[in-house]
């Protein structure tokens, strides 16, 4: 159960959503178990709050990316998808 505390720097943005969420919930579980040394508890709390904010930000983003993938001349291209442009 004793993992090294947030000795690594705060998770970089390359952490996937899922990993970040799992990390957050692991932190909450550890804190609730109450077996951390005080310094570790405070560091974990800090990290937990950061993670929670970052995840909420990501969820709040309404930016969309819808693309059409096709092969043109042996290459794979991604073009913005616009189904209005599709004729029948």
């Amino acid at each position, binding site marked *: 159960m004793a993992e090294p505390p947030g000795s690594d720097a705060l998770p970089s943005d390359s952490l996937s959503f899922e990993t970040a969420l799992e990390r957050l919930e692991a932190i909450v579980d550890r804190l609730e178990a109450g077996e951390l040394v*005080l310094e570790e508890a405070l560091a974990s709390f800090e990290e937990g709050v950061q993670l929670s904010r970052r*995840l909420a930000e990501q969820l709040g983003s309404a930016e969309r990316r819808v693309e059409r993938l096709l092969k043109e001349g042996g290459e794979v291209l991604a073009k913005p998808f616009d189904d209005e442009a599709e004729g029948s």
Partner: protein
Amino acid sequence: MAWAPRTGEPRVLRVGELVAELSALVADAVGRVWVIGEISNLRRAASGHHYFTLKDDAAQLRAVLFRADAERLAFAVEDGLEALAFGEVSIYGARGELQLVVRQLEPRGQGALRLAFEQLRVRLEHEGLFDAGRKRALPRFPRAIGVVTSTRGAAVRDVIEVTGARFPSVPLLVAEARVQGDGADLELVEALQLLAAHREVEVILLVRGGGSLEDLWPFNSEVLARAIARCPVPVVAGVGHETDVTIADWVADARAPTPSAAAALVVADRRELLARLARDRGRLRAAIAARLGRERARLAAGRDALRHTSPAARLAARRARLGRDAHRLVGAMRLRLERAATRLRAPGESMRRAPLALGRARAQLALAAGRLDSLSPLAVLGRGYAIARRAADGRIVRDPADVAPGDALAVRVAGGEIDAAVTATRARRDA
């Protein structure tokens, strides 16, 4: 060959001639016909031609289905199949057999397509392509979602809408393919492979709207089924259908009744996630507050413990002990004194030593008393001397000047007192 009327002599023909005549006769009389019967004794030659018997209760008829015609069939020809065979009757010269050259074959009791579907389903099931153990879990938060579909039609719009409502930040990559008609299955396979090769795509939706069995036929394709089974990325089939489940539905890692439902399977709902994050934050705060509370309590307990072991505390403890000991000491001393007093009052050992000491003391006393006596002024009176005192104030007279003739005197002698008066005084000459 013209008929010879049955008059006169029977004709003489060679076998070949006779059989040929009969064959033509039959072809003319019956020609092309649909025949209902059961297929049996099926033999598939290496050439691809099918040789079998069509039979019923009354009779049987040899039949042949040539390769070209067999390939056009959706289903596989099997023994026991009740069929409708369309073809020409003739006599096969080499064996002198009546035969039906089958050009078209239709299963009785169910459509050709449905039969084909059943046959493929059974075959793939036996191969294990539908096994539950093969089905992969869908990623909870895919980096990107691939969509194989026609860009016409509602399916793709439904997927875009549903993912937009639930989790808009997940990218959608759409690969287009026809979803019905001949050759559509090959386009579907190509689109699937294109998406699977994309490094961001972690799950693929294979979707189309509802339709008839014929419309959905590409999704029952064996080629497509095997492509789905081989796909390195999980595939979710969302084929809208009223009653028919397609082969693609069976092989896919998950299936949904509509394109919208399929989209909902692959994205989490961010509203739920936001609520969960809020709960997590609450739990974080509560946990750290509890932790700090415990620290404070520990600290306070420590201080209390310190107070009990401080020098002042120890001193006070010692004083208390001292007081108690002193009290006990006093009590013990009193007890011993009382015992000693009790011993003194009672005659005992000490009393026997007393008389010797007493005698000595008396002797000393007598000696001291004798010496005192000789020094006493009263002993002087015994030798004849007298003490004169002025009667007025009792003062002892030593000098005749102390008195005048006529003064009263009190004279003390050994035997008592004499009252006298001064008649004359004379001073001593050698004073």
